[in-house]
């Protein structure tokens, strides 16, 4: 059911945009309510698409039933001229080594980035005639963290790679105002330090950081002191300074310098080579440093604000291990993190800044956050799905009653089948939260391998993430409060752990990480990491509707309130958006069943399951 708030209703319409750097997105506020938000990658099928998010914008407008001409404001998530100042200042500071970088970036600025408003006017084809708003990058992040949060007042911590000048900020929000009070400036950046190690251990920057986090539990932080002595100097208040002679991102085309490589005993790992103990230890070391700094920042911020609430955003706030340490060891009672903490979420942030700071509208929060479980993307009607399925000649079952559908799907899950699940509005942000998910039984010994090799087409050393009924979370995980956006980790409780046999203990030390992670450590092995942690999503009736009822039924059937919830995509592919995307992924993998709203497809019943060009499908996505 589309909610249409036509312009005639008199509601102010604000469109927020993040674009041209990483993970472009659009978000629409109508009357101060988030009506829609989506990342461009979901429509273009190009992961982290940085281009102007015209498809995401069109979707947002369609969802609201308005046109570009109905918008009152368009907000952009950063200040291009401030960023340009920073860029020139950096090139000057590193001249003449900055020549190559200059010759790549300055033409882009001369051609377009210095004409951003004109670029947007062209994109809108002259249909939008209102004013353009530009907000500081970190203020956009701060707004995305504070304004949709459930708090009337909160301390604000933003951490990312770089915006204009700021890379880390502290601030405070109250009612409809927020203020940034302290900052660390480029090139000193916790996000870029983490990215430098991501690059050095052989993963792709801006997408492989979560792999470093997942790799960390295998290693020992034996390089921690080296990092703190040479790369980054950290004060007790969480502020830091980085020695740029170890890095190359200011002036060159890589993250790290020869001096960095020399310090850590060799060049960066070739992405195609195997991961050695050095990489594991490097990951553990930078993860520990990152967590320590996050915690120190939080403690200092608490001293400055004396608030009991903390909100966070910026790419570093996706580090759920660090987030959990802040919640567990930090001074704040409550923590809320913007689920789309990266640049995509800044589109939402700038829209909120327009609403509160520019248009001066009051804030209308209650005890629950305004993020709507981040289910802010497109959804599809049964008619649309039926037409599509008939068009491709798919064999399907349609269920008139939800109870019958859930009965059938939970049967499949209990039989260790892998189920693709498309239900309701698509998620906004990097996590699949039960609207575009692949589901499985976490108790299965073989599920992790099956899902990795036959569905995701990867050989991962990371376990899958669990979703758990909110009311049962305490039965399985040592979780403080709820985690509806999968941004916290929690230990699997002792009572669900199992002691390892001698053979398993030996396997747990195997150089092959895939063997290590497959050791059965608990009653839910597919979601238990080697350190017994799990990245948990709590599922509740209010936010998650049918997905909650599915889990409830699975628990009734199996006694287990936990499911594997992994994103509905293959390696390198953006999470699916439409039934067409989901069907293609279903047909291109060894998934057993696909649920598209009220429709169920069984792989075994499809007439031409192998007519699909699997290799072409896999090749269409660049592995991350």
């Amino acid at each position, binding site marked *: 059911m589309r909610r249409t708030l036509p312009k005639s209703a008199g509601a102010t319409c604000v469109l927020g945009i993040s674009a041209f750097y990483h993970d472009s997105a659009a978000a629409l506020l109508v009357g101060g309510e988030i009506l829609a938000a989506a990342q461009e990658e979901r429509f273009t099928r190009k992961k982290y698409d940085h281009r102007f998010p015209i498809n995401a914008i069109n979707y947002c407008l369609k969802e609201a039933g308005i046109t570009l001409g109905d918008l009152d404001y368009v907000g952009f998530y950063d200040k291009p001229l401030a960023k*340009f100042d920073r860029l020139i200042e950096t090139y000057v500071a590193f001249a003449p080594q900055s020549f190559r970088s200059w010759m*790549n970036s300055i033409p882009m600025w001369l051609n377009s980035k210095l*004409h951003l408003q004109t670029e947007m006017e062209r994109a809108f084809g*002259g249909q939008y005639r209102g004013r353009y708003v530009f907000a500081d990058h970190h203020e956009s992040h701060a707004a995305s963290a504070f304004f949709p949060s459930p708090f009337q007042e909160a301390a604000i911590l933003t951490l990312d790679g770089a915006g204009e000048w700021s890379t880390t900020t502290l601030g405070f929000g109250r009612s409809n105002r927020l203020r940034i009070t302290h*900052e*660390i400036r480029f090139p*000193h950046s916790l996000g870029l330090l983490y990215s430098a190690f991501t690059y050095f251990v052989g993963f792709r920057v801006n997408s492989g950081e979560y792999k470093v986090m997942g790799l960390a539990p295998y290693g020992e932080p034996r390089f921690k002191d080296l990092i703190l002595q040479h790369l980054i*100097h950290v004060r007790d208040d969480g*502020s830091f300074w980085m*020695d740029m002679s170890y890095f190359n991102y200011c002036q060159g085309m890589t993250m790290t310098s020869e001096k960095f490589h020399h310090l850590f005993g060799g060049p960066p790992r070739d992405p195609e080579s195997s991961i050695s103990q050095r990489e594991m230890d490097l990951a553990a070391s930078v993860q520990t440093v990152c967590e320590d700094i996050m915690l120190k920042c939080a403690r200092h911020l608490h001293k400055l604000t004396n608030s009991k609430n903390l909100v966070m955003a910026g790419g570093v706030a996706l580090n759920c291990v660090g987030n959990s340490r802040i919640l567990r060891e930090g001074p704040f009672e409550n923590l809320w993190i913007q689920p789309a903490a990266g640049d995509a979420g800044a589109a939402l942030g700038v829209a909120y800044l327009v609403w509160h700071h520019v248009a001066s509208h009051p804030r209308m929060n209650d005890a629950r956050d305004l993020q709507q479980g981040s289910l802010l993307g497109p959804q599809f009607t049964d008619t649309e799905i039926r037409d599509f399925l008939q068009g491709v000649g798919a064999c399907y079952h349609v269920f008139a009653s939800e109870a019958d559908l859930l009965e059938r799907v939970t049967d499949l899950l209990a039989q260790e089948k892998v189920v693709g699940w498309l239900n309701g509005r698509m998620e906004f942000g990097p996590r699949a939260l039960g609207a575009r998910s692949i589901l499985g039984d976490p108790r299965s010994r073989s599920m992790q391998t099956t899902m990795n090799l036959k569905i995701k087409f990867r050989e991962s050393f990371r376990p899958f993430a669990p979703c758990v009924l909110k009311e049962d979370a305490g039965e399985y995980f040592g979780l403080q409060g709820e985690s509806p956006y999968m941004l916290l980790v929690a230990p699997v409780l002792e009572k669900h752990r199992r002691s390892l046999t001698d053979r398993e203990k030996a396997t747990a030390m195997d150089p092959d990480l895939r063997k290590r992670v497959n050791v059965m450590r608990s009653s839910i092995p597919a979601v238990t990491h080697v350190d017994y942690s799990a990245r948990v999503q709590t599922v509740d009736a209010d936010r998650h509707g049918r997905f909650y009822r599915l889990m409830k039924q699975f628990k009734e059937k199996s006694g287990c309130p936990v499911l594997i919830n992994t994103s509905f995509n293959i390696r390198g592919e953006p999470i699916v958006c439409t039934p067409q995307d989901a069907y293609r992924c279903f047909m291109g993998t060894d998934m057993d069943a696909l649920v598209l709203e009220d429709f169920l497809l069984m792989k075994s019943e499809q007439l031409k399951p192998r007519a699909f060009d699997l290799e072409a499908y896999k090749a269409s996505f660049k592995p991350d």
Partner: protein
Amino acid sequence: MNFIVKAVSLLIYPLSIIVRIVNALIDNDPLRLRRQTAESYWIVRHSVPSRPSYFSEASEVEGRRRRGPVSLLTKAIRLLARLFVPPRSSAKDEKFRPAAERERGIPDEVYTLW
């Protein structure tokens, strides 16, 4: 056009070397590349953005107000950029393609800093 833009970029670059020398002579270290001795590396922000500043592509609060040779260089490049302003409206049958399309071969980690 692309050739002209690259040629202009090439011609301006030597100015950055001159500005760097001037910066060194006046002991200007805007990126704080030299290790600081302060007890804290936090930089306090004393102001908040005014309402009118939200309608500007420049920032009131990010970084400090910059004067001196770098700001002159920045202004000069911005003036030059006026030569390359794209047309406000696209031709009717032209599909919008933002000029900010990145060129191939630029690593993501570097591009995102630009």
